[in-house]
């Protein structure tokens, strides 16, 4: 049966579709009773009451891209750690628990060294 195999995927997809329908329904209901008079100053972006100076997508100082890089490293690491966490039981019963654990500790320590390097380079020091 198709549903037995794809049931999980179908369920998640249906829930996501229903979530989208919920928003669409609410916006539709609102469009029935809400006033709609476009134009004028209400379509100008809010900038504390004065007319906006320059566009909304001006150059801005993005200090966060270093964090994005750091995040990527740790996120990939986490993908490695999930299978390890699941199989730890299996290896412990096979008598390899200590080996597998030490291997992961080495892996984690290398990552922490990377984090320490980033901290030493002053990623978190803002002037």
């Amino acid at each position, binding site marked *: 049966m198709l*549903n037995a195999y794809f*049931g*999980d995927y179908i*369920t*998640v997809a*249906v*829930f*996501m579709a*229903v*979530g*989208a329908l*919920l*928003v669409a329904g*609410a*916006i539709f*209901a*609102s*469009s029935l*009773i*809400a*006033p*709609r008079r476009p134009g004028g100053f209400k*379509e*100008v*972006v*809010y*900038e*504390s009451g004065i007319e*906006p100076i320059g*566009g*909304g*997508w*001006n150059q*801005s100082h*993005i200090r*966060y891209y270093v*964090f994005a890089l*750091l*995040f990527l490293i740790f*996120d990939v690491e*986490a993908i490695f*750690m*999930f299978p390890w*966490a*699941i199989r*730890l*039981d299996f290896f*412990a019963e096979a008598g390899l*628990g*200590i080996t597998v*654990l030490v291997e*992961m*500790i080495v892996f*984690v320590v290398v990552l*922490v060294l990377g*984090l320490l390097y980033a*901290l030493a380079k002053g*990623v*978190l020091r*803002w002037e």
Partner: protein
Amino acid sequence: MSFWATLGLQVVAVLAVMLGLALVTIYAELKISAHMQSRIGPYYAGGRWGWAQPLADGLKFLQKEDLVPRLADSTVYRLAPYVVIVAALAVWVVIPFGPSLVVRDLDLGAFYVLAVSSLSTLGVLMAGWASANKYSLIGGLRAAAQLIAYELPLLLAVLAVVVQAGTMSLSEIVAVQAEPWFVVAGVPISAPFIVKGQIIGFTIFMIAAIAELSRIPFDMPIAESELTMGYLTEYSGIRFTMFFLGEYASMVAMSAIAATLYLGGYALPGVPAATLNVVGPFVLLGKVALLVFLMIWFRWTWPRLREDQLQAMAWRWLIPLGLLNIVLAGIFKVVL
């Protein structure tokens, strides 16, 4: 019952639970905040204790004009609330309310929760970027940086639970916590993970969860006194309501996940396993209510963190602590 009929029932039930709990949480937040500040709070709507205030607010938002700024990236601007609500609803698929009261017990449950709940980051970033407003852009960038920084402690805290439980299925994680831990005078005693060595994990999870929800003390993305309303500045009417609803629905969902992972979920020591399909949902709701109250309490207890303090807290403290917690969980698992 056929697959589709069951699925339909599940969708209706989850929608009812999510919207109902979100409305109750909004009301609770209004009322509890008010009492913490020696006010009365909502009083008139609905006739008694202002119980209908969230509904009245929703109805009012429904009648407001739906504005899209002229310079905004219209498509992305309109799409952002969809992403947030879809993520908020999809999390509920794996949350178990009882031994057989779960929509789908995915094998990847814990992983799925993390993946789906981080989808809302995308919605927030879309909203901030598409508004073409400087406040929104700064708020959106702050939100993205905050959400990725606190995604990691959240993930590491969950990993420690996975190490201890040996499974990622949320139903099985609850079952492991309901198993007898030790026997005293012939009576088996079970204990949730928070007692069985995950107290650090629970603390990290709750801090990271509050940061993921952008609630005070981690509400830099929508800091009113400097960014007006952050990425929500340009949103009005029903689209704003959708973000608002998504926020409270995720707050309840996050509490339910914390309750499931650390507080034993629907199981309660002393409640016989045979009755859990009836009693279980109420046990879970009780634990969720406790955690939601904690979050509301925190809001009126701590001041907002500065942006660099917020980043430093995640990178300097929570992530190393989370890694240490995993190593400890592994050592307990293998050696003991």
